């Protein structure tokens, strides 16, 4: 069956991958089903919630609205690609640390998308203002936190000085 499908080549989290998939299959489903990268979540499936956000060629996109054919040859980063290979004693990405320390994650469905949107934001605005954080995360919905803890997390992660403090706060739990 799969021999019918074209091979889609992408670089996912730094690794070259080739997947045989229907070309109109959603990038989200290819990531979750074919590549078993289940960190990326489906919320609404129509672009309203942003929980499926990934970075494609350095831009934030909703993976539920991208036919995988449009990802041919693209470089994709998912939440799994934020921290280097996680091993016991390994380190999280500063944003992940900050989300843990500041209570930026609750039920967790929006968190991977929030992290990717925040990572995208910090790349273009390393020291964002609150207005820039709100704009950067505008496409992502969270029904638990009321957003303030998430904004605090992003602000904390962007303030280099507070990063060791964050880690301390986290480990003290």
């Amino acid at each position, binding site marked *: 069956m799969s021999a019918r499908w074209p091979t889609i080549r992408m670089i996912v989290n730094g690794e070259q991958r080739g997947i045989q998939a229907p070309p109109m299959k959603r990038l989200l489903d290819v990531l979750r089903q074919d590549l078993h990268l289940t960190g990326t979540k489906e919320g609404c*499936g*129509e*672009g309203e919630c942003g929980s499926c*956000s990934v970075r494609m060629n350095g831009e934030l*996109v*909703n993976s539920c609205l991208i*036919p995988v054919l*449009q990802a041919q040859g693209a470089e994709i980063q998912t939440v799994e690609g934020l921290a280097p290979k996680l091993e016991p004693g390994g380190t999280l990405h500063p944003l992940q640390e900050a989300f843990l320390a500041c209570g930026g994650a609750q039920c967790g469905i929006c968190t991977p998308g929030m992290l990717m949107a925040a990572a995208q934001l910090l790349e273009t605005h390393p020291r964002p203002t*609150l*207005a820039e954080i709100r704009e950067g995360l505008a496409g992502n919905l969270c029904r638990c936190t009321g957003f303030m803890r998430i904004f605090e997390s992003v602000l904390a992660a962007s303030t280099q000085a507070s990063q060791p403090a964050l880690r301390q706060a986290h480990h003290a739990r």
Partner: protein
Amino acid sequence: MAIIRDVMPAFDLLQPSSAADAQKLLQEHGSDAWIMAGGLDSFDWLKDRIKKPKVLVDLSGIDELKGIRVTGDGVEIGAMTTLTEVAEHPEIRKNYSVLSQAVSVVASPQIRNQGTLGGNVSQDVRCWYYRGGWPCYRAGGNICYADTPVGRNREHAIFGADRCVAVHPSDSVPALIALDAKFVVQTSKGEKTVDAENYYIGPDLDITRINMLQPGDLLTAIRIPSTWAGATFYFEKVRDRNVWDFPLMNVASAIVLSGGAISRIRLAVNAVSPRPMRLKNVEDAVVGKPADASTGEMAGKLAVQGAVPLQFNAYKIPLMRNLVKRAVCGVAGQQAYGALTGDLDTQEVAWNS
């Protein structure tokens, strides 16, 4: 929320790499073909299995349709240029800022990164009966489900309805009309250039088509002449949620003032009618008048003359009156767009202290 059935109907996927090839394929397949740009509108239709094209022509591999060119007379924007690129382009921000403002409030950052200008101006209406696959007039049936005593029509038309009461949902179009943009369309009879407002077709003319594109036609570029470069602009969008939502209404104007009086103006409103509306009668009425509150009042009252509300959308009449008023006299002061971000800046002071 859309019902996600996930499995799409089967079709042939064609991926041309030049505009000429795309047009050839579109002409070959005629009404069997579906054009996909960024895919945001298309994906919805296909996943819900409501539109079932035999052939899908994907434009994403055509580089010549992407990018913004500053020409001797304004700018030319390829139809496949993303909304983010349009919003951030320095020349557009400098001289045609009404367009940067309009596209930067389309949907969400993610969708602007993927969505194209050509797709935004050519997208289909959002009436939920029609999008839900109900056999309404626009879908080829003989009833409108929205225009009944119990139809949910809060977001529908107050002007230009003819059997269909859906509104045009684009945010970029009123800005493009205000800038007197020209749409470049390749047809079987060669290239056609049409004024932005004439790209659209009302249900009175053809109820199943939202724009002039016939099977085989392709929108390739949008040209903005330098006529209105650096004019005084106004754009405002009203919606239920401050991101992602389609407009309940939006307004755009370009005004050239001379000695406090309006010497030239273009004014457009969208999400009030099946066709984006250029308010030519209001433009004519305010030329030569001072850009002040009384002119604005007059403009607002004139704009809503002849409006016909449905059961649940009468609020659109005062809304339109006020938006037109601000688009005419608000340009003298600070713009609503700035006022919105100003609100955030105030919060920021508290945040940092």
